[in-house]
């Protein structure tokens, strides 16, 4: 069993506790995200998976422990500064701007950038995602669910992230679209972007993941390679729903 060595890790959670109000949602979560790999968080509804991503991004209050990003603790660093330092985030559910065109959505993805190459990068992305080029003048609301998910991934990529935090990209998509979305995740990772993904569609997700983490009731239950988790009987029984 390979260890998650800190040196390889771009993002490390160290006994992190986080809350939205009074009740703690994360209760001492520790794990590392291996640089350049795909790590998937699985676990039942309400386990705190999305909260892990939000804690990494800094939009939920961390009360104990610390988060280390690129070997630096990031407690007190603002969300936008984390984004400027290479963290990109695709939240759960639709996170585009429905009454803006596809191209405008991509421009909004680049909101934090002030360099002059934004338009060029958008062109490059449109080349990578031909379906978006086809619809670049349409409102995002006119795209199918899968197309919108791909748009949102593209929006995140404009920041040239080092790590992509992506929350349930397959939610509500048709099986064909699920395949395509996962293929894109793999492709993005292939370009050197570390991926920390939350998925309900655990079997599919683990199949393309290097590592998997099982979260339950705000605590890490198991961490291993994706393959090992897929073959773990207990995981199968409790978390893969089969």
């Amino acid at each position, binding site marked *: 069993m390979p260890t998650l060595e800190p040196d390889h890790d771009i993002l490390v959670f160290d006994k992190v506790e986080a809350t939205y109000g009074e009740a703690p949602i994360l209760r001492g979560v520790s794990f590392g995200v291996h640089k350049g790999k795909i790590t998937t968080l699985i676990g039942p509804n309400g386990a705190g998976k999305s909260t892990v991503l939000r804690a990494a*991004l800094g*939009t939920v209050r961390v009360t104990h422990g610390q988060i280390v990003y690129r070997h630096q603790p990031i407690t007190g660093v603002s*969300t*936008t500064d984390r*984004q*400027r330092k290479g963290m990109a*985030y*695709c*939240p759960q*559910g*639709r*996170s*585009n*701007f*429905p*009454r*803006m065109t596809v191209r*405008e959505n991509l*421009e*909004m*993805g680049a*909101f*934090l950038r002030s360099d002059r190459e934004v338009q060029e990068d958008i062109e490059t992305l449109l080349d990578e995602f031909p379906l978006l080029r086809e619809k670049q003048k349409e409102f995002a609301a006119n795209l199918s669910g899968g197309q919108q998910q791909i748009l*949102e991934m593209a*929006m*995140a990529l404009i*920041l040239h992230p080092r790590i992509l935090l992506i929350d349930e990209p397959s939610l509500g998509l048709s099986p064909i679209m699920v395949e395509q979305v996962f293929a894109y995740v793999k492709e993005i990772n292939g370009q050197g972007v570390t991926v920390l993904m939350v998925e309900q569609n655990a079997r599919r997700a683990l199949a393309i993941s290097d590592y998997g983490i099982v979260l339950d009731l705000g605590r890490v239950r198991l961490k291993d390679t994706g393959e090992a988790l897929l073959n773990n009987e207990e995981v199968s029984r409790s978390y893969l729903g089969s």
Partner: protein
Amino acid sequence: MVILAQLINGLATGGLYALVAAGIAMIFGVSELVNWAHGEFLMIASYLFFALYVLARLPYPIAGLCTMLLMLAFGALFQMIVIRPVVHRPWQTQLVATLGASIFLINSAIVVFGTFPRRAATPLSMQNLTIGSLSISYQRLLLIGLTLFAFFVLHMFIHRAKLGKAMRAVSQNRDACVAVGIDIQLIVLTAFAIGGSLVGLAAALYAPLGNITPLMGIPLTFKAFAVVIMGGFGSVNGAVASAVILGVVEAFTIQFLSSAYVDAMSFLMMLTVLVWRPFGLFGRQVGI
């Protein structure tokens, strides 16, 4: 001829409503908060213009421009001092905050300037363009012209500028804004600043044509609110279009029905829209 005259009257009145309503709509669009003090922004702006133009004797264009710039700052300050502390509070708290601010502003104006109306007539407001039985001051023509221009600029800003697009973004999906790094508070501040400068413009154009009094903002807040509802809450284009429609409808109501129905008319229109088109006359697609 009377019809043409009333059409122009309606456009001028509608323009004033629109300059106030646009700010309310924009602020609601990005913050889901109704700024009940927006009419008082116009009142403060009018006194500012009075101070700059009449008391400090600055040339008209400079006094007008300074009013706009000062109101831009005023809007931003207002957001930081009054709005920021209540953004995460329930709407009742926000209502009390903006209503309280409006009462505070009215009383401040009474303390500083008293209740006797002030006037700031310009050479343009004293001279009329007369064509047949139609007579209108050059100041009002300027008001109509510059209001159109201001809305053209605003439209371009919202659809072309990065900050303007970000305002639309905030009005459409706040979670997604967090994801792409748009600072929502900054955008709300921008909306207040733009709303402030629009009423600054309104004040510079309209103050020469009317009384400046501490209570002048109150009827305008209510007209503007009606118009914002008709336009689909949070839609700037919708509010502007509804303002112009309301202005013209009011003028024709006075001419052909009775002046007694004017105020009833705005509320009747508002209710009709609420019942038949809950998302406003122009529906949802006209976002900020």
